[in-house]
């Protein structure tokens, strides 16, 4: 039985997605099944390994983006009674670059050793957080901004919403581009006595070249426009949902849960960032 379900999100970049699929399959196919979510890709741009194809007119036009895309994949696993088969879910975008052959094995071993970790994020070599981590270590944090997460099923079972379709299965799908949703997920983790951790035991990189220079192929906005829209939408979302007027209030909110976690579980203080 393979413990991990890997979900790759693709939109109109079949070659890139296929390459990533084959890399994972070759290196770690023994511990993970791989599922490819097509976020409104056109028919001639589907990955060879496509599992599900979201192809409503609106998705074809705008895509799904990370939150709705992952909701879509996880919801389909749920619907197909596959969700319970796995212990963890590895969510990645197709522009993820995996160099270490034992990436998933390493990440999963961390989850197994630290049952309190609900969200695990590998660092990128470009992240400033590396300055906070000793070599081969993990730290619990209140802020992660990434495109790749290993999620513990035990956490997900506490926070998913399977009854109302894919839209809000894990992430709040009303926040399309997702700015702020990572923080909300981290708050939910700590609120449910799980931690969110970063590690440099393995690194993952994002090849931003695709978003920066090939947005026409992907059929999405330019990189800078996407960033702007994401921030503006995210701020509107946090105001609508929480009455927070800026990102710092959301951070404060998450940090309250984070600090509280160590009051309840002082034995984990060594992992404080």
């Amino acid at each position, binding site marked *: 039985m393979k413990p991990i379900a890997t979900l790759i999100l693709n939109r109109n970049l079949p070659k890139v997605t296929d390459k990533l699929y084959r890399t994972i399959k070759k290196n770690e196919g023994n511990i993970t099944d791989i599922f490819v979510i097509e976020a409104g890709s056109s028919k001639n741009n589907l990955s060879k390994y496509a599992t599900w194809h979201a192809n409503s007119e609106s998705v074809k036009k705008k895509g799904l983006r990370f939150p709705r895309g992952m909701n879509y994949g996880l919801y389909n696993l749920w619907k197909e009674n596959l969700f319970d088969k796995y212990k963890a879910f590895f969510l990645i975008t197709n522009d993820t670059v995996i160099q270490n052959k034992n990436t998933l094995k390493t990440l999963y071993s961390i989850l197994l050793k630290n049952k309190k970790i609900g969200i695990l994020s590998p660092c990128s070599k*470009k*992240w*400033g*957080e590396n*300055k*906070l981590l000793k070599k081969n270590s993990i730290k619990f*944090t*209140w*802020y992660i*901004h990434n495109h790749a997460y290993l999620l513990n099923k035990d956490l997900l079972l506490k926070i998913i919403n399977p009854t109302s379709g894919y839209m809000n299965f894990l992430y709040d799908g009303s926040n399309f581009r997702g*700015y702020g949703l990572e923080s909300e997920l981290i708050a939910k983790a700590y609120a449910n006595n799980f931690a969110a951790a970063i590690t440099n035991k393995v690194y993952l990189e994002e090849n931003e070249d695709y978003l920066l220079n090939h947005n026409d192929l992907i059929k999405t906005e330019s990189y800078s426009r996407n*960033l702007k829209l*994401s*921030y503006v939408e*995210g701020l509107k979302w946090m105001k609508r949902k929480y009455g927070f*007027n*800026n*990102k*710092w*209030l959301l*951070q*404060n909110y998450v*940090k309250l849960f984070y600090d509280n976690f160590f009051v309840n579980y002082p034995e984990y203080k060594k992992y404080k*960032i």
Partner: protein
Amino acid sequence: MIPKIFNKYLKNRRTTLLAVGPMSKNCVEATIEIANEKKVPIMMIASRRQIDSKEMGGGYVNNWDTKSFSNYVKKRDKNKLITLCRDHGGPWQNSLEIEKKLNSIKAINSAKRSYMEDIDSDFKIIHIDTCLSLNGTEKSKKKTLDRLFELYKFCSDYAKKKNKNIFFEIGTEEQSGTTNTQKELEETLHKIVNFCKKNKLKKPTFVVIQSGTKVMEMRNVGTFEVPFRVENEIPAEIQIPKMIEICKKYNVLMKAHNTDYLSNEALSCYPRLGINAANIAPEFGVIESRKILEIMEALKLKSLKDSFVKLSLDSNKWKKWMIKGSKANDYEKAIISGHYIFSEKKFSNIKEDLTKILKKNNQSLDKILKKEIKKSILRYLYNFNLIK
């Protein structure tokens, strides 16, 4: 170890103290007036380039030197709400020390004389910033700290001799190897606190840390309001709470520099985050210059406006504020550097002409300009939870 005047604001409620750069005579007056109208304490933070001792050539603000500036403020500050502070004191912080290529001994002695004048002139908070060398940033952390200790002890001893009660600010927002990373901050605070203990000196009141703010042109380009990652930088979301945690551990207050131009939403988070004080300076100069040009435009005073723009541009003082590859036009550049030329004779003539024109309509130029600056100061007082 904080000046009594701030007790009410720092001990019983969450506020961020406001520190205003004396960018011009109008800015100084506006700050004094608003502090006294609202009965709220404000720090006035003079850099050595703005105001220094007579020996050092004064500074670019209103031809004041330390003493005359202090006298001017004290005379008008009826309720004693302004705390005079030295901002970025220390060796090579005055352009003359660089122009004269002073070696380290001479530059430190020069800085000492400047501090003596500060203390004699009732400056209450003394910022010791030893991050510079003759050739830019001092690369040796040891030298930076040794100089800090030397000046700290010198100022403490001098103040004691003169029976003055002073407080200290240390650190810098610049890359100095002392307070930029968590490790550096921890080390620096550890060393300074031990140094103070050993020498029976007061602990520093404030420490400046890099808190995700940086002013370029007429905006804040730091990471505080940037929503996404900056390569190899710890996200502000993690960095700021961690740095404040370290400050709390050593019981030293955290002071943010370069807070200009942040949004109301961002500013209102300062008290909540535990940022105890914040410096705002160039924004007030920019506001005054912009208003002057707007008035000239509204009154169709093209020749006066062109003269001001040319004078400001020729000063070249805008250069250090520009973003690489900037598309700013001459008008914007003139706004950026306007306040540097307010004390020049040629500008006085321009201002005099404009004042006369406005007077015909029973308007006072300085009143209009001060009103504009006050409006901006109020924005900070309100967001920092200093007034309701």
